[in-house]
């Protein structure tokens, strides 16, 4: 069978599976629509959380980014996993005990203030839209590269699928499709990784192959030593050493970690399990399932980088393998013979370098570079779509609940019936899908920049407000609101200045204390904590019933 047929078959079958699950898991109450009736077993929630978390960026781009950053790529590896320890220990069990539907629910009730609730609603919607635009674009890109359909048509098909199961099943439909999507995406990620590890080092487990000796045909010696040597020859910094300052790496890792722990679409997954213990357990499962991909990614990065340099460096352009031409057609690889010798010079010096390689190639072309069969390549397409759709659905649900539940039911229209609220939730998700699709078709040029924004914002607003709300009975609305506002404003100004107003100055010489805009969320978080604790000392303590609520959520198993 041709690659095209395989891809249509694999993608078609997975889509039928998702639609089947949606029909089977229709939601009939707001509790089912918002939190799947709080009836999801921990293992299923772990799988769903892992799929929810791992986006098109994790699946398609991360290994590529790590392969170009070398050791500095660890900011993403640790940043996007370390937050789960904080979630499991500081947030998930207590918010599960609180037992409502959304993050703004908690902020609004804990800080007995509609203002706090609205700040949380705006943050949740902003963060989620930022993210979802990238997912829809990812769907379009996978469609156009593997199925050779127009990007826009790809986005529309993706919108249709998400719309179907999100509107019909709400959180219940999303949860069980995410379980299926995790299985598809992890299988699609691991198969090529295992093959390439066997090919290059003889190890079945990529994580071990990563630290092993290369097969004779690849030149022998330890993989990482060989890679460091190649880098040195070509003028790149050694792969296993870093370029960024320790302080900056520290702050970026911190911002990604606290941001992860403060992202609403991740937090609400822990509202869907039946008990506090199940929330703790599902956080463990979630990170375990995430870790499988996140520890494989750096191995793929090193394999692919070595393989790429071996294949192209100083080789004749005419003798390049067929995958090189395929990806040249999509402009992901481009070659310009500057010195006219017909050979490819791939070096660090931009004046001499003749090859430009898009980072996404590392995952997308990996199966072809390793000469794997067509069905494996088709699998990568289905995996990329599963990663993008599962994350998009989780984000769209946050947007819809923020509007129907937090804005309408809990603030503007408290008298609406449950049936009306459910209808509003479905209408909200419809509009959210349309807006997300619009951004997928007309991607704003600043998507890459605003991702730093999403994490910085979550780290400097939600994370401190939630943690203080649980661990301090004394924290009041004045403290929490002023902390959130200071944290957000500080972080936002710093990012907007370097990313939009004066991008030319976005380098280590101009950064304050040498901290990049990606890492400034950590400082914003400290500022939030400091302001909140200070203001709270000089204002009235929260009412008795709020303090009692805090004491109650600290202890599991008590009747509500």
């Amino acid at each position, binding site marked *: 069978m041709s690659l095209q047929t395989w891809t249509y078959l694999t993608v078609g079958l997975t889509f039928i599976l998702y639609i089947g699950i949606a029909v089977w898991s229709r939601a009939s109450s707001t509790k089912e629509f918002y939190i799947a009736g709080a*009836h999801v*077993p921990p293992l299923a929630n772990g799988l769903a959380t892992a799929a929810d978390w791992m986006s098109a960026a994790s699946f398609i781009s991360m290994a590529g980014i*790590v392969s170009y950053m070398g*050791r500095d*790529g*660890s900011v993403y*590896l*640790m940043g996007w*996993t*370390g937050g*789960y*320890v904080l979630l*499991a*220990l*500081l947030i998930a*069990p207590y918010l599960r005990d609180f037992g409502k539907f959304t993050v703004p629910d908690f902020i609004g009730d804990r800080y007995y203030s509609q203002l706090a609730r609205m700040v949380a609603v705006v943050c949740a919607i902003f963060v989620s839209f930022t993210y979802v635009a990238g997912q829809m674009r990812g769907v379009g890109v996978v469609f156009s590269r593997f199925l050779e359909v127009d990007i826009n048509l790809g986005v529309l098909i993706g919108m249709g699928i998400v719309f179907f199961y999100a509107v019909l099943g709400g959180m219940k439909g999303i949860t069980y499709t995410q379980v299926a999507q995790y299985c598809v995406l992890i299988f699609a990620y691991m198969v090529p990784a295992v093959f390439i590890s066997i090919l290059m080092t003889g190890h079945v487990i990529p*994580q071990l192959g*990563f*630290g*092993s*000796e290369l097969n004779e045909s690849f030149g022998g010696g*330890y*993989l*990482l*030593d060989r890679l460091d040597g190649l880098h040195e020859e070509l003028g790149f910094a050694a792969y*296993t*050493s*870093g370029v960024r300052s*320790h302080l900056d*790496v*520290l702050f970026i*890792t*911190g911002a990604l*970690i606290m941001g992860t722990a403060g992202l609403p679409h991740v937090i609400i997954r822990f509202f869907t399990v*039946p*008990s*506090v*213990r199940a929330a*703790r*357990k599902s*956080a*463990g499962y979630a*990170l*375990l399932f995430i*870790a499988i991909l*996140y*520890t494989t990614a*750096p191995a793929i990065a090193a394999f692919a980088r070595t393989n790429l340099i071996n294949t192209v460096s100083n080789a004749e352009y005419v003798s390049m393998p067929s995958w090189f031409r395929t990806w040249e057609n999509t402009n992901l690889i481009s070659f310009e013979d500057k010195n006219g010798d017909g050979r490819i010079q791939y070096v660090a010096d931009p004046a001499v370098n003749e090859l430009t390689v898009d980072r996404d190639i590392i995952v997308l072309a990996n199966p072809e570079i390793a000469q794997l069969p067509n069905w494996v390549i088709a699998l990568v397409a289905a995996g990329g779509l599963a990663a993008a759709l599962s994350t998009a659905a989780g984000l769209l649900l946050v947007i819809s609940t923020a509007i129907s539940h937090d804005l309408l039911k809990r603030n503007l229209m408290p008298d609406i019936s449950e049936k009306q609220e459910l209808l509003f939730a479905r209408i909200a998700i419809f509009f959210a899908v349309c807006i997300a699709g619009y951004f997928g078709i007309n991607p704003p040029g600043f998507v890459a920049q605003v991702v730093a924004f999403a994490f910085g914002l979550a780290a400097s607003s939600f994370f401190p407000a939630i943690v203080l709300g649980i661990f301090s009975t004394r924290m009041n609305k004045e403290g929490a609101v002023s902390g959130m506002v200071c944290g957000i404003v500080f972080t936002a100004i710093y990012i907007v200045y370097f990313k939009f107003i004066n991008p030319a100055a976005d380098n280590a010489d101009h950064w304050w204390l040498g901290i990049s805009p990606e890492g400034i969320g950590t400082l914003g978080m400290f500022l939030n904590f400091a302001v909140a604790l200070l203001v709270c000392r000089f204002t009235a303590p929260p009412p008795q019933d709020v303090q*009692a609520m805090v*004491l109650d959520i*600290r*202890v*599991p*198993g*008590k009747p509500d």
Partner: protein
Amino acid sequence: MPGNTDNLYWKENIRILTILLSIWFVVSFLMSVIFVDQLDAIRIGGFKFGFWMAQQGSIYIYVILIFIYLKMMDKLDRKYHHEEKDILAEEEAAGE
């Protein structure tokens, strides 16, 4: 009103969090970032130790930390009789 046992439970909970988060901090920020170059002097197979911590070891330790937390809290909940009803298991039993 909060009972005295609730206070003791909370204190022990905080102690567990302090221990586990200290390990988390040392692994994430000290071993994988600040002292990564010093640790790179140690080699394990083809890995420099600091590099391995930053790209592999830290993630494994995160997973282990959460499961240790789960076990420690189970023990604490039993000690203070805070076990919750297992709703899913009960329903399953009732259904059969």
